[in-house]
C-alpha cells in the first residue's frame, strides 16, 4: 500500500497542463517554413531529393499532406531556404491550407466554410472516434494511443477512441487505404450513426505518402467521403492530433 503510494508520488504530475500551449523541443520536426532567399540558378535539389514529391518549384512550395518530415530538403538546400520548426499545430480541414508557400510564417489555417455547422453543435463537448487502420505501419496507431495516455490525456476534452462504431461520431483513418482493408473501412463507416465525420491521420492517409504508387492501394473511398480533418505527420505527434480536433469541434 505504502509502496504504491510512493510510486505514485515519484510519478508526480504526468499530464501536460495545457496541450494547446505546450512547447515541444526544438529538435521536433514540425511545420516547415520557406523563406524568401533567392534560390541558386536552376537549382532543384530539394524537389529531386524529396521522397514523396511534396515540393514544387517557382516559387517553392511544400505540401505537408505528402511530407514525411525527413527534412532532407532542409539539409540539401545550399541557401538554407527551408527550415523545419517545432510548431506542431499543422492540422487543417482543407488540403490547400496544408501547402506551405514561400515567405509565409502564419499558423496553418482552418477553412471555416468547410466546417459543417452540425460539427461544433453536436461534437463540441464530446467526440467519440473509431480508428480504422487501412494499411498503416502502426506508427500512427502508437501516436493515437499516446494521445489518450496519462501525458496527453485528450479524454479531458471529451475526445476518446471507442470500440464499437455504433457508439461513435466519426472514423479516424490511418494508412494509404489498401484494397484489402476497403470492406472493413466501409462497413465500419456505415455502422456509425449520423452525423459523422472522417478524419485522415498521417501522410499515408492524406496522400498515400511514401506508399504512393503501390498497386495494393485503392483510394476510392475518399472520392465519395470528403474528409473533415487532415492531420499531417509521419506519424502525427499526439499534440498535432489533439489540437487539430479541438480546432474543428470547439
Amino acid at each position, binding site marked *: 500500500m505504502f509502496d504504491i503510494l510512493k510510486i505514485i508520488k515519484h510519478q508526480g504530475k504526468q499530464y501536460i497542463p495545457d496541450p494547446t500551449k505546450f512547447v515541444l523541443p526544438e529538435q521536433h520536426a514540425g511545420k516547415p517554413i520557406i523563406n524568401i532567399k533567392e534560390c541558386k540558378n536552376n537549382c532543384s535539389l530539394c524537389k529531386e531529393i524529396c521522397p514523396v514529391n511534396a515540393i514544387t518549384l517557382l516559387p517553392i512550395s511544400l505540401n505537408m499532406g505528402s511530407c514525411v518530415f525527413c527534412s532532407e530538403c532542409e539539409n540539401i538546400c545550399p541557401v538554407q531556404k527551408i527550415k*523545419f520548426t517545432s510548431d506542431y499545430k499543422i492540422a487543417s480541414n482543407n488540403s490547400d491550407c496544408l501547402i506551405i508557400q514561400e515567405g509565409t510564417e502564419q499558423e496553418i489555417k482552418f477553412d471555416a466554410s468547410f466546417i459543417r455547422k452540425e460539427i461544433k453543435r453536436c461534437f463540441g463537448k464530446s467526440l467519440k472516434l473509431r480508428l480504422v487502420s*487501412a494499411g498503416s505501419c502502426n506508427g500512427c496507431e502508437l501516436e493515437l494511443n499516446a494521445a489518450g495516455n496519462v501525458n496527453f490525456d485528450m479524454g479531458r476534452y471529451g475526445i476518446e477512441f471507442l470500440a464499437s462504431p455504433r457508439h461513435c461520431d466519426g472514423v479516424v483513418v490511418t*494508412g494509404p487505404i489498401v484494397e484489402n482493408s476497403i470492406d472493413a473501412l466501409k462497413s465500419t463507416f456505415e455502422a456509425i450513426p449520423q452525423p459523422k465525420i472522417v478524419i485522415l491521420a498521417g501522410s499515408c492517409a492524406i496522400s498515400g505518402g511514401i506508399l504512393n504508387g503501390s498497386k495494393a492501394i485503392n483510394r476510392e473511398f475518399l472520392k465519395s467521403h470528403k474528409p473533415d480533418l487532415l492531420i499531417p505527420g509521419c506519424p502525427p505527434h499526439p499534440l498535432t492530433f489533439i489540437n487539430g480536433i479541438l480546432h474543428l469541434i470547439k
Partner: protein
Amino acid sequence: MNYCNIKNGQTIPFNTIPVMEYPLFRKQIIQLLENKDCHCLNYFGYPQKGNQLQLICCIGNDTTSEIYVFSFLHDLNAHSILDSITREHFGMHIFEREISEKFGIEFADHPWNKPVRYPFDRFDKSSNFKNYPFYHIESTELHEVGVGPIHAGIIEPGHFRFICNGEKVLHLEIHQGYQHRGIESLFLQKKSLLERTILAESIAGDSVAANTTAFSMLMESMGNIPISKQSSLIRTIAIELERAAIHTGDLSALCTDIAYQEGSAVLQGLRTILINTFLIWNGNRFARRLIRVGANPFPINEQIKNAILKNLEKFEFQFNEMSNYMFNDPGVLARFEDTGVVTNEQAQKMQLVGMAARTCGIPRDIRKTHPYEAFKDIKHTPICLETGDVFARAMLRRLEVTQSLQYIRTLLKENEQEEISRRNEIKLQANVFSIAITEGWRGEHCHCAITDQNGELSAYKIKDPSLHNWMGLALAVRNNDISDFPVCNKSFDLSYCGYDL
C-alpha cells in the same frame, strides 16, 4: 552438402549460389533443420527469365554464425507439384504458403496450405477474403467466435476465428492480409536511396530502428560502403532504446488487459520518457530520420549524450520501482502465470524466433548468434526463461529493458564525437545477393536483396519475426479461456503490417 556459406551482412555474387534439383534441395533443408541450432531465416521465390522461378533458401546456424544459402530452379510452365517440406519441419509452413500463394506452386501433402496475405500480385485472383478456407469441427457442442478484422482499440486489423467449447478455446485460426501494402514491390519501384530508406522505416512503425538498420547493412554491403564505428554505435543504441521503449509500452498494455490500473498508467508515462529521448536526439519519437545508409546525420554530442543518460537514470529508477511492485502483486501473477503457455517442443517445432522463443528456453538471439554492428564487440548473453507463459513474456521484457539500458550506457561511453555526414546516392554491385539480419524487440528482421546486371535492385525480400510467431500465439491460446485472449495476444504483440507487408 552443397551450399554457399556466408555471414550476416555479407554480399556474394549471385551465380555462386548453388542451384540443385528439387529432391536434393528438399533433402538438404530437411537435413540442416535436423540440427536444433538451425532455423530457416528466409525462403522465397525469385522470378527468372522464361517463366522460371528460383527458390532461394537461407538457413541460419545459431552456434557457428553461418548462413547457408542454396537454391532450386523451378519451371512454372511444367506445372509440376513439389513435395512439401512442412510435413518434416512445421516451421517451414509459412514460407511454402507464401510461395504457393504468390506463384501458384502446389506443394503436395502440405498440412495447412492456406492463403497468407492476399497480395495484389497473387497467382490466383479468385482467392479472396470471402472464400478463406477456415478450419471447422463438426459438433453440436462447439461454437465459433469470429473477431475482427476491426478490433476494439487502436490496433491494426486482422481476423481471429476461435472454436470454443464453452469458454475454453480449442482452436484459433488467424487470418490476415488486411494491411497488405505491396511494400516489397515498392522497393523495386522506387529508385532513389532516400525513398527506399523511408520505405524501410515504414515496414513496421514500432521497429523502425531494427528494419532501417537491416536495410542500411544490406545497401552498404552491396555498395561497398564502409561505415564508421560511430554510425555502428548509434544504430545499436537506437535498436536497444527502441527495445526498451516498446517493451515498456507492452508491459503497460499487459497491465491494461488485466485491469491493473497502476501498472498501466505508470508504465505508459515511463515509455514517454524513452520515446521522448528519441525526440530530443533525432526529432522524431520513433527513431525515424536517425539511420541513413552510409551516413550519420545525428551523431551524439556531449549535450545529447547527457540528455540521454539523464533520461535513462530517471526512467530506470521508476521502472524498477514499478516493476518490482507489479511482479510481486498476487493479482498480477495470478493472471500472468500459466496463461497462454507455449512449450519448448512447440516453439522448436514452429521455429519461433526472438523473445517468443527465448521465453520457451530457446536462446535464439541474432545479437549473439549472428552479431551485427556494435554487437560484434559486445559479448551478448541472451536472457532465457523456460515457462513459455504470459508471465515469462512479461518478465523477459522487464529483464531485457534493464539489459538494453546497460548496453546503451556502455555504448555511450565508447561514443566519440563525429561530424554529421550524409549520402544521397549509392551504386550497388551488379549480380549480387546479400542478406542482413537484426534483432529487433520482437525478434529477427531478415532482409534479402538481389541486383541485376546493371546494379539495379531486382528483388527485395523482407521477413518480419511475426511471420514465424503468429502461429505461436495460435498455439498459446489453446485450452485457455477465451477471455484470456487479449492478454495472450498482447504478450506476443506481433506485427500485422510486418506480416502483411
